[in-house]
């Protein structure tokens, strides 16, 4: 455990070394947040419902989605693909730690740094803009939201690893990852709540892992899911965590047989 804590610490040191680069990333997130906020503020109205949501609920949803995106979707797993392509993976294979454990620790370090800054920025923006947003006070819903976010982090981590392991078979690891992130905007409910789509499409979303990235945790936070929906949602998402874990292990073993340690 101690070695993984050291990995988290070294990730923080790395971010702190390139402070200006990290600042640019945070400014980018603030820009994104402001664009989304002003867009939905104008589209929605305090008196009418938009897609069945009140202005308070929709603003809470879209701002929450922007915040959760920076927590759930931030990852270092793209470096796995680069590692494989340039042959740096060989260095990791001889080190005394689990390869995916190392990358998960990197992810945690990265997310922790981002969460601290995101909370600071949101607090400042809240006092500046005073947006009409909903604060969940029920501790049960808050705890369930945290649990759903943790599941989402695992889902994103395993999918990130799988996308990067394309590097065992192809030098082009960027394109599948980019397509994934474009699709996730829709399928995870990052751009819109998924319940604006027809019921048949919603059923498909419900059984895919993507709706558990952002939509499910946010709906729990808003307190709009029934007990039955909660049980079903947690069951499906946990089944996906197991499936993706097993798939990651299988692809890793197959990929290592293919790996020739070539590169610079």
């Amino acid at each position: 455990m101690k070695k993984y804590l050291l990995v988290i610490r070294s990730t923080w040191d790395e971010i702190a070394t390139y402070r200006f680069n990290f600042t640019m990333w945070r400014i980018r997130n603030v820009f994104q947040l402001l664009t989304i906020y002003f867009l939905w503020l104008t589209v929605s109205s305090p008196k009418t419902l938009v897609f069945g949501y009140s202005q308070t609920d929709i603003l809470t949803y879209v701002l929450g989605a922007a915040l959760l995106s920076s927590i759930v979707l931030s990852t270092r797993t793209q470096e796995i693909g680069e590692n494989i392509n340039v042959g740096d993976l060989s260095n990791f294979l001889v080190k005394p730690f689990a390869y995916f454990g190392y990358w998960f620790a990197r992810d945690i370090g990265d997310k922790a740094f981002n969460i601290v800054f995101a909370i600071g920025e949101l607090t400042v923006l809240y006092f500046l803009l005073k947006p009409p947003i909903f604060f969940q006070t029920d501790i049960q819903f808050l705890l369930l939201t945290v649990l759903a976010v943790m599941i989402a982090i695992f889902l994103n981590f395993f999918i990130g690893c799988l996308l990067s392991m394309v590097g065992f078979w192809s030098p082009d690891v960027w394109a599948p990852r980019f397509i994934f992130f474009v699709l996730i905007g829709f399928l995870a409910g990052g751009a819109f709540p998924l319940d604006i789509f027809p019921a048949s499409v919603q059923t498909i979303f419900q059984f895919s892992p993507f709706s558990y990235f952002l939509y499910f945790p946010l709906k729990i936070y808003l307190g709009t899911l029934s007990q039955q929906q909660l049980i079903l949602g947690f069951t499906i998402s946990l089944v996906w965590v197991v499936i993706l874990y097993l798939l990651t292990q299988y692809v890793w073993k197959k990929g290592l047989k293919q790996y020739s340690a070539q590169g610079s």
Partner: protein
Amino acid sequence: MKKIKYYFKVYRMLLRLNLLKLFAYRANFYSSAVTHTVWSIFLIVAIALLTSKSSHVFGWTRNELLLMAGCYTVISSFFYFLFSRGFTDFSNIIHFGRLDSILIKPIDSQFLMTCSHASYTQICRFVIGAGFIFFIFPHTGATFSPLLILWFMLLTIFSVTIMYSFWLTLMTIAIWFTHLDNLKELLLQMNQISRFPQEMYKGASIFLFFALFPLTLVVVTPIKVLLQKASVNDIVWLVVCAISLFIISRKFWQFALRSYTSASG
């Protein structure tokens, strides 16, 4: 005049070299083409969904906003075709000290840094955007004329100049602060500002609104011309912003070069 001809000749050769590279790495081309196609469709569908419940937003009709999404796709495809690859490498070239070899070449360093790569896969983005414009334009109630298209193309040059100047000015910071990969992410996000009408940002602080003002002109002014709603002021603002920002970015690059230490990161 002789110098301009020389630069055109060099640029033609660079475009040809890029094309040869594209044929050499075809798998990369196909995957990038799919990526840009999916992204372009996503941008248009997002606006279609967002405006599905309202006929007017920010004083623009739904079809006008959809036209804006199409025009953004076309204008940004020009910008990304000409400069995105150059700007992608920008920070790394400085970080690893490779700018040295560019500075000693008998050609303008800014030209080589920003114009030596073309992204041919942006053609997919252009085709989708242009196709969508032709589809949605008749629904806006305006009428097409060759003169309007010419005006649109002319103003697109100024719009791309604004985007280029913004990118160059901010990317130049990499001379002082190396390893700035995230600057590109910030600029990509800033480009998105031009997807929406100016009215949307009026709720933001005055400082933010004026800082972003040139970007809000990038798509809005050419569209206003297409819809025959542009005033002389709109066009003058776009042209003045484009020329002044280009001069500022050029001067800033030349000033920054004096601080370049050539040390590799």
